[in-house]
């Protein structure tokens, strides 16, 4: 085999591999969204976050506006503290409510933002006051059975 | 003396291959090392070349103890001193004849391709294979492969060449060519040649001095004429190729009749 042919074949091989790496990085993963993360962070306290995880989506009106970047436990108030990163360009009023919702019956959990009517917007580092914890299926069923039993 | 071997011992596992062997290989001469198969003749060449380390004793080549050289010094020493012709030729199978001969030149010198071309063609001319330079090793006969290997071994103009069984398995014509080549190389280039072989007649015809080794010892040494008139019955049997003698035709066994009778009884 001629040296030049070999060099060309190897060149094509390496080029194909690099193309594959680019496709995987940009089209098949969230690398592209890493760049847009120049957002601002706000916090929210929840009684119960259910199955929420880091990188869970945050949406408002069904549009994805950010993601969960941190989950901690507050030892003073015995509550979960969730840090949310909102993409630059999205603004929400101060009295926005955050609730933990489930996509479908068995789907993953995400944070839904419900904007209020305040004149002022949330600033970086602010905290969302109005929160609604995750629905835990066992508790819901328990309450349902309990109320049924009470009714009879 | 180019090569001086003193008190050489070497063993593989429990088997002693050399036991306190002394040998001298004179400069500019053809020295033959003969012996039956399996006496470690090839091992001796590898010891001289520094590929194997002896258990005891020293090997000096050109006054330099080969086994005291570090890795890099040993490689530099080999490049300057030694060429070796392997039984199979050991040509690089992915390179053609020309590139095989050019290989040591390209690896060790910074000569331009046009100079290398001159050298390669001259070396190939010396072994009569200039016309075969575009063949691949797989297309060569055994004898031709050895001739190419010889051209490659002399490419860097070493002081000595070691031939490992150069005549084994050759037809009479190839054999004649190789005998002539070894002889001519020695005379024309003043190379020191070490030929390891058990082809007694061919080897004796070109060698100035012969060592016969067997069972880890030098049994006899001297000029070829002296060996032919050796007093030792074993050397005589070896030199003349007699089927029976001190080395018996039969592997040690019980009497034939006893054996046959035993097999009757189902044993």
């Amino acid at each position, binding site marked *: 085999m001629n040296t030049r042919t070999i060099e060309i074949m*190897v060149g094509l091989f*390496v080029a194909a591999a690099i193309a594959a790496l680019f496709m995987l990085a940009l089209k098949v993963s969230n690398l592209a969204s890493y760049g847009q993360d120049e957002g601002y962070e706000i916090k929210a306290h929840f009684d119960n976050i259910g199955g929420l995880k880091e990188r869970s989506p945050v949406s408002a009106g069904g549009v994805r506006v950010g993601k969960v970047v941190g989950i901690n436990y507050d030892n003073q108030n015995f509550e979960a503290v969730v840090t949310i990163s909102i993409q630059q360009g999205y603004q929400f009023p101060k009295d926005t409510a955050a609730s933990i919702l489930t996509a479908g019956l068995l789907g993953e959990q995400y944070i839904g933002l419900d904007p209020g009517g305040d004149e002022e917007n949330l600033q970086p580092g602010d905290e969302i006051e109005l929160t609604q914890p995750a629905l835990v299926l066992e508790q819901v069923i328990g309450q349902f059975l309990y109320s049924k039993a009470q009714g009879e | 003396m180019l090569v001086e071997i003193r008190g050489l011992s070497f063993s593989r596992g429990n088997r002693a291959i050399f036991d306190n062997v002394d040998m001298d290989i004179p400069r500019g001469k053809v020295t033959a090392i003969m012996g039956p198969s399996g006496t470690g003749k090839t091992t001796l060449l590898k010891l001289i070349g520094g590929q194997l380390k002896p258990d005891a004793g020293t090997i000096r080549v050109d006054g330099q103890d080969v086994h005291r050289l570090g890795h890099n010094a040993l*490689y*530099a020493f*080999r490049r300057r001193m030694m060429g070796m012709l392997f039984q199979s030729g050991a040509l*690089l199978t992915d390179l053609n004849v020309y590139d095989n001969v050019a290989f040591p030149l390209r690896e*060790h010198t910074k000569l331009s391709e046009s100079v290398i071309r001159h050298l390669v063609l001259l070396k190939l001319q010396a072994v009569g294979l200039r016309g075969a330079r575009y063949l691949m090793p797989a297309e060569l006969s055994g004898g031709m492969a050895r001739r190419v290997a010889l051209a490659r071994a002399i490419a860097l103009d070493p002081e000595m060449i070691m031939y490992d069984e150069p005549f084994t398995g050759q037809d009479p014509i190839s054999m004649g060519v190789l005998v002539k080549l070894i002889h001519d190389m020695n005379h024309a280039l003043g190379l020191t040649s070490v030929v390891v072989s058990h082809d007694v007649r061919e080897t004796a015809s070109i060698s100035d001095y012969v060592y016969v080794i067997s069972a880890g010892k030098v049994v006899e040494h001297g000029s070829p004429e002296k060996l032919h008139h050796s007093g030792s019955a074993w050397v005589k049997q070896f030199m003349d190729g007699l089927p029976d003698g001190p080395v018996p035709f039969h592997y040690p066994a019980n009497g034939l009749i006893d054996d046959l009778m035993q097999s009757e009884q189902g044993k």
Partner: protein
Amino acid sequence: MMRDKLQSLGRHTLDIFARIGRGAEFLIHTLYVLPAILLRPALVIRQLYYVGVQTLVIIVVAGLFVGMVMALQSYIVLVDFGAEESISLMVALSIMRELGPVFTGLLFAGRAGSALTAEIGLMKSTEQLSGMEMMAVDPMKYVIAPRFLAGFISVPLLTAIFMSVAILGGYLVAVELLQLYDGVFWSQLQAKVDFYEDFMNGMIKSVVFGFVIVWIAVFEGFDCLPTSEGLGQATTRTVVHGSLAVLGLDFILTAIMFSA
């Protein structure tokens, strides 16, 4: 009788340790001479052709089919939950985290690893390695190092190609055959496949697999008995040990990477 068996067991155990020792020594020697080969890129490029390019076809074909089968199987399970839009996610995550590196490793051990062992073993048995030594050309530098480096580079590249072809195979089945919506396929991936956690971890696996397979392949060739039988055994050992090493290391790496 019993004593004989114990003796042979002991001997075999010692043989194994001796082999591991030689393998480690060989690896250190190889790594030591590796920098020198960077000055001779032509040698490495030639080996990249034999080791990488020639393995490409089997990688592409295998990747395509693995991706298509994964998509079909995922559909069968997910459609019951009405979650068939997650096919792409299922395919991509399995391929990136596990199947990509592991399949590529196994195929590489079988195709390129065995060829490396056979080639080096043949060079040894035809005295080409000895011949080089006597020509003062170090076979560790000229033969072993370029093959080691080429193999080590090839495996991650082949893995990346396997992954992308497999995902395209999944795309073919999901979008062309099962009539899934094209936009959903890609948006699921971009939303839920994490670049570092999923993709980079898979690539790290492939780098480790490549290193170990190439080490085994090159060592077995260099260490084999220079007979046709010894050569056959060495080639078999490369495939068996290489494959087992890939599977074993995959478990260990998975445990480390995805346990948190």
